[in-house]
């Protein structure tokens, strides 16, 4: 009887067949097909012609791509720490069992369930010049209005604000889940050890949720490098490409200019950047842990 359980049979593979079908057709195949496309001169209707690494050469020599990479990196460098810090702050403040904190948790998380269209619509109402919320506020204060969506520098900032507002719920919830895993007797031991609130935060709480902080940072790096909808709908990458992220560049190249080969080449570059950034983040935090 026991023997039959141990014996490996080909028929057992049938159990994973449904998953493998979806995994191979929707993830593995497109990944490799994308790599192959990036080595071809191809458009959306025509055939493909192998041209080696020429698409990559074109991508790297395009100043618009360089600007998009720079914009995206700046965006990630500012938005990810903000999301981690704000998420952590909110979770620490709302890690209570009162009704008010339950309500506020729901409130802060509610933005996450909105679609990007709604989010950008809401923030356009805030930022739009003339009779937007901030414009009215500036008028009331007697200040000169700022073209948040049409001024270089401010446009990427505005996209960032909308993004942080939209994405804050998930980090907060992940941190809350981690905080609730910390045994309460650790805090009691710390109270008996005469630890100040700051010492409790830095020596007990943060080390206890370190792995969640790393997880949230990596998830957010991966997500924010893929910035697209907010930038397209709020500023369309402008003015003068100052808020154009890499994905918008890929979209424009592939679907506006119909240069699918070059678009996939840029996609592969983005893939490598995200992989590298996530690995560096993981490496840095795990090294700190060993020290």
């Amino acid at each position: 009887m026991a023997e039959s359980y141990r014996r490996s049979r080909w028929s057992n593979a049938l159990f994973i067949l449904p998953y493998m079908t979806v995994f191979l057709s929707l993830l593995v195949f497109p990944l490799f097909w994308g790599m192959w496309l990036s080595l071809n001169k191809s458009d959306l209707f025509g055939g493909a012609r192998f041209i080696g690494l020429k698409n990559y050469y074109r991508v790297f020599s395009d100043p618009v791509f360089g600007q998009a990479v720079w914009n995206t990196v700046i965006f990630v460098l500012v938005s990810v720490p903000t999301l981690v810090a704000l998420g952590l702050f909110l979770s620490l403040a709302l890690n209570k069992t009162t009704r008010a904190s339950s309500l506020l948790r729901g409130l802060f998380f509610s933005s996450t369930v909105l679609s990007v269209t709604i989010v950008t619509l809401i923030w356009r109402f805030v930022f739009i010049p003339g009779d937007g919320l901030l414009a009215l506020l500036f008028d009331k204060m007697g200040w000169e209005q700022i073209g948040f969506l049409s001024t270089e520098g401010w446009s990427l900032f505005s996209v960032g604000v909308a993004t942080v507002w939209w994405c804050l719920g998930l980090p907060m919830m992940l941190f809350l889940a981690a905080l609730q895993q910390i045994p309460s007797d650790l805090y009691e031991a710390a109270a008996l050890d005469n630890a100040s609130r700051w010492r409790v935060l830095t020596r007990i709480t943060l080390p206890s949720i370190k792995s969640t902080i790393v997880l949230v940072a990596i998830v957010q790096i991966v997500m924010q490098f893929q910035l697209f909808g907010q930038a397209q709908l709020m500023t369309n990458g402008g003015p003068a490409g100052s808020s154009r992220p890499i994905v918008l560049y890929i979209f424009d190249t592939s679907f506006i200019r119909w240069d699918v080969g070059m678009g996939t080449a840029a996609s592969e570059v983005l893939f490598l950047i995200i992989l590298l950034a996530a690995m560096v983040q993981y490496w840095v935090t795990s090294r700190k842990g060993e020290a």
Partner: protein
Amino acid sequence: MSATIDINSVTKAYGALTVLDDISLSIEAGEFVVFLGPSGCGKSTLLRMIAGLESVDKGTIHIGGERIDTLPPGKRGVAMVFQTYALYPHMTVAQNMAFGLENLKVDKAEIDSRVQSAAETLEMAHLLDRRPTKLSGGQRQRVAIGRAIVKEPKAFLFDEPLSNLDAALRSRTRLELAQLHQRLGSTMIFVTHDQVEAMTLAHRIVVMHDKKIEQIGTPMEIYQRPATRFVAEFVGSPAMSMMPITGIVSAQSSDQKGATLEVEGAGMVATQVPLPASFALDGATMGVRSEDTHVVQPGADGLNLTVTVVERLGERTLLYGKLDTGFEMIVEDSGRSTVRAGETVKFDFDRSALHVFDGTGRAYHMAEEA
């Protein structure tokens, strides 16, 4: 360092639910006191109130003459060992022990010296660089005790610290705790529901039941002269057997030592327990510990016990059974007993070791020898 602890009329309630009601207790400096009681009796709550982890609704607590119930936990001068040890998982053993001293801004050299000294006392100097996750249950227990020792507290508080250890380790750690107390001479309060821990460790046991202190006494006082029926039944393994008293033949027996009682299932019993005239007979019982019973020859005088379960403990055998009247009784026989379940044996009990409880549960014992 050791200090007295005075608990005066302390009360604790969670909303409408009172968990401790008007508790008063004085603990001498250097004394080892055990709070003993069933789950939910409030013993851990009382310990946590001394530690400052629970607020005091009414009453006061003084340590070494200083009122501490209004101070935060870290300012009370006590150290606590938790049931789950509560070691900081991301710190090494040495860092765990040093954390409290660092918070008190103790000099670094002094911290190192205290940690080293405590580690040597507890024979764990080789573990100082390890994290708690790399330690066994017993080693974690030592670290938790070490963390308490380095603080040189006025009093040590132990909240069921042995309950997560296996049986062998528990008895060894119990012995080590007793030795540690002898060496340090500190005031220690130990909470447990395990009477063996209470009996072996305590100078005095505080038996708690239903929000109140039921009895305070030395282990032998608690065992031999329980103040109430609850204490008599809770302390001692196996539990004391109880037989209903149906009448008092005379409050003083013919030899003037105690009352003669009419006991259901045992007939007339001449005890050495004097009873007052106000004795509440309704619901009164006579208690006998199994070690005060013995199996007698089939023809001799005694009571019949139909044995239902035989428990062989090596040096003695416990016979669980029923009297002819149906009351349950536990009788002790020698370790070599050949009695089997289903058999009927005759047994007798020592008249001088009986306990009498009135209808309210209050206990009466043989007069103490002068």
